[in-house]
């Protein structure tokens, strides 16, 4: 596709349920990032993939959060036993290579609401 695509656009789930958020990066981009943006805040880093491997997962808040990128393209962010505090916009970004020297392109995010 022409840009980073995230699905679903919006997701409402009940507390305690499991959710998956999908990110389709720009074709050819080896670096992929997940960020979480809570209401009234700037995005906060969750995890970075270089190819298929998670090169830096230091931003994941706890072990309920997990992300994969099995073929080095599409990535899925998985949240188990969701809590109301997980409600936020989850943003995905991709770039040709990691770091600030190449532009990171963002998707439109998934707004997750846990009720």
């Amino acid at each position, binding site marked *: 596709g022409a840009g980073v695509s995230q699905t679903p656009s919006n997701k409402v789930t009940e507390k305690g349920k499991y959710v998956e958020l999908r990110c389709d990066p720009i074709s050819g981009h080896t670096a992929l990032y997940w960020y979480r943006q809570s209401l009234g805040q700037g995005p906060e880093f969750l995890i970075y993939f270089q190819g298929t491997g998670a090169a830096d997962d230091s931003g994941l808040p706890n072990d309920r959060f997990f992300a994969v990128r099995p073929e080095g393209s599409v990535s899925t962010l998985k949240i188990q036993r969701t809590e109301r505090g997980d409600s936020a916009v989850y943003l995905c970004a991709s770039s040709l290579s990691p770091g*600030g020297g190449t532009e990171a392109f963002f998707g439109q995010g998934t*707004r997750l609401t846990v009720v």
Partner: protein
Amino acid sequence: AQTVTQSQPEMSVQEAETVTLSCTYDTSESNYYLFWYKQPPSRQMILVIRQEAYKQQNATENRFSVNFQKAAKSFSLKISDSQLGDTAMYFCAFIGLRAGSYQLTFGKGTKLSVIP
């Protein structure tokens, strides 16, 4: 650890006028990039302008320019000839250049409203 501070939660400007958004940051690194991103209601973060810390010349992109003061760790964004389409959240962001430094650190944002 890096921190980015945007001290203006909201600002407004008349159409065609000029507005400046403020950003300060704190880091122990000597080489890094600074960015301004725009986030309209569509939620997609759009890169407005980028500054490399080792370049003394301030970056400019059409109506957008920055005032980068490295010693003061200040990075303000000036929008000239403001347009209605400039209405959005604006985020200042930092990324270091040391090995393994791949994550953007964002400020809390400034909500800019352009008034007709």
